[in-house]
């Protein structure tokens, strides 16, 4: 799409050299979430307070007696990261108004996994977005409860194996399709919603920077490849992340003031979903008919998305 327009932002040398998520964390080899966090924090910069829900990210980054966080960080319960971030934002606002702290732009950011965002954390997230706090929620979507040992979530893809969606005589694995959280966030009328993927680092950082500059709530849904839970080779993290885009399974787009825009072009035609599925053990049991079902659904979802991209006007355009 309009790559030329954003040319300067696509230069790696412009990226913050600071590391706010330091090495030495205990993430698995090839952890997409740790990589994504590092990149997200580069986009956010040092004036950031992170409220982190229980999950992999909290576990791997805060192993006693160390921390990987170079910025203020609070680990909260599983279901309320967005609520705490809302409290932090309101507290900062009050202190600034009273002149107790310097008038500095400190961003409150909540981070959670797919469970802490789409399942148990959805209520707190919805409330925070509805109230319009000046904050960002970043969801690291590794498509299951990896921290407790790979249980299905509402973000686990159709057909995938997990320890609580086991394929066998009675079932073929996960029976439901991913709940569309970015769309739920769009329905909250927040100013900025985006999907991101650490396999496309410049796009990810640009989106975070954009959300950082905005006043008001914004939401970033970040695919986090999980070699451990997806039963795949840990050297393939970046490749699988790219395949998620190239097959159309996880398109990268943003919604700004209601206007949809594809930020990283997908190949035309899309690669078959099988290319993505076959690298992951969690899809190994799938029969061809199920793969066809997934392909049909992905085609439909892409059409639905392109329909929005092509025809939905921004709020300004509407008037």
């Amino acid at each position, binding site marked *: 799409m309009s790559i030329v327009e954003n040319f300067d932002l696509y230069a790696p040398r412009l990226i913050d050299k600071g590391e706010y998520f330091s090495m030495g964390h205990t993430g698995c080899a090839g952890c997409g979430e740790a990589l994504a966090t590092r990149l997200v924090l580069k986009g956010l910069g040092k004036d950031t307070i992170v409220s982190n829900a229980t999950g992999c990210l909290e576990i791997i980054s805060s192993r006693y007696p160390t921390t990987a966080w170079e910025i203020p960080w609070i680990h909260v319960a599983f279901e309320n990261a967005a609520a705490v971030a809302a409290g932090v934002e309101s507290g900062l606002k009050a202190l600034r108004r009273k002149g107790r702290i310097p008038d500095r732009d400190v961003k409150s950011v909540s981070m959670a996994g797919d469970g802490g965002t789409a399942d148990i954390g959805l209520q707190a997230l919805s409330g925070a977005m509805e109230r319009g706090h000046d904050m960002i929620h970043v969801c690291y979507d590794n498509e299951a409860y990896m921290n*407790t*040992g790979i*249980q299905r979530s509402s973000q686990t893809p159709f057909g995938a194996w997990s320890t*609580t969606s086991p394929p066998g005589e009675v079932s073929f694995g996960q029976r439901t399709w991913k709940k569309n959280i970015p769309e739920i966030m769009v329905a909250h009328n927040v100013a900025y919603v985006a999907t991101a993927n650490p396999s496309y680092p410049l796009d990810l950082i640009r989106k975070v920077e954009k959300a950082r500059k905005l006043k008001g709530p914004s939401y970033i849904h970040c695919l986090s490849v999980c070699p451990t839970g997806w039963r795949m080779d840990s050297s393939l993290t970046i490749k699988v992340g790219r395949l998620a885009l190239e097959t159309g399974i996880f398109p990268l787009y943003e919604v700004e003031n209601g206007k949809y825009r594809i930020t990283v072009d997908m190949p035309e035609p899309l690669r078959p979903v099988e290319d993505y599925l076959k690298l992951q053990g969690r899809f190994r049991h799938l029969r061809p008919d199920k793969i066809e079902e997934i392909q049909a659904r992905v085609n439909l979802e892409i059409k639905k998305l392109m329909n929005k991209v092509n025809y939905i006007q921004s709020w300004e355009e509407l008037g």
Partner: protein
Amino acid sequence: MKKNLLFVQGNEACVEAALYAGLEFFAGYPITPSTEIAELLSYRLPKKGGKFIQMEDEISSMCAIIGASLTGKKVMTATSGPGFSLKQEAIGFAVMTETPCVIVNVQRGGPSTGLPTSVSQGDIMQARWGTHGEHAIITLTASNNQDVFAMTVEAFNLSETFRSPVILLFDEVVAHTRERLIMPEPGEISVVKRLRTSVKEGTDYHPYLPREDGRLPMSDFGGVHRYNVTGLMHDMWGFPSDNPKIVYGLMHHLVDKIEGHTKEITRIKEFFIEDAEYLLISYGSSARTALHVVENRRARGEKVGLLEIQTLWPFPADTVRKRCASVNCVIVVEMNMGQILHEVKKAVDDPDKVFLANQINGSFITPTDILNILRIIQGKGS
């Protein structure tokens, strides 16, 4: 016999027992150290024609089993500390609506996220008073796989008998210890079936009208009888009421149906009690350590005994008082700051002879932890 011998962890023993007791519906949410229960049931239940649902959070898991129980199924959920906290309101609802259900809480270190993979017995009082308002509750625990099995079946039986939620309070050590389990044959342990009403279709059914023996027959919700279920105080029809007489009657019914049957609910195990001069009182995994100490001391001629409590609530105060009457001193062995200690102190005639041997740092209580206290009491150490 051999084909019934399993080598499993406590969580698996709980699953086997739940299926033995006729579990038909499980709703849960992943949480360490109870997750294996959900994982195993996601395999096992559908094969038996049962239903497994992984819900979106802890609250909905609890609420789902209440709904399913009312429709006539035997139900269970499993969780740990933080999830148990979230479930409390719904547990109160199950108490008020007299809905049979089993809640497994595999205890871990707390409060809050605490120590997700370490052992603790800190939820004893939460099991009793976690939900608000005056109420009675049944809570069982166990120290080894065989007892986990027996107590799990017992939990289903008691929940059906008393139309009450029953809490199974295991802990991380019990849940994750792999040891043998001898699977009872079908019929070897009696299983209480859902008591269904004999009221015919078209005739008025009163969901909250006890029979002469105090039990309340149920009618499958959505079946032939239309009736009301509410978390409000209610009359025998299930309709809300703030009539003081009805409220008084319901409060008494809810408490008395359990507290009044403490004796028949009580499950305890006794080891070397008869001539004991020093009595250890323990429960759950810490009773394993206590038993080791007792056997070890007995070999040296010291008169030490163990009372292992399996029914934590209603607390078997009478039994404890009787067993403690003739001993020189009592040591309560637990992995908290003395939650059962205070119950024992309340129960016995001389509270000054009750001491605490505990461990609260997330590691499993060792015989040394108990011996150190025992020695001081015996005047052998400092």
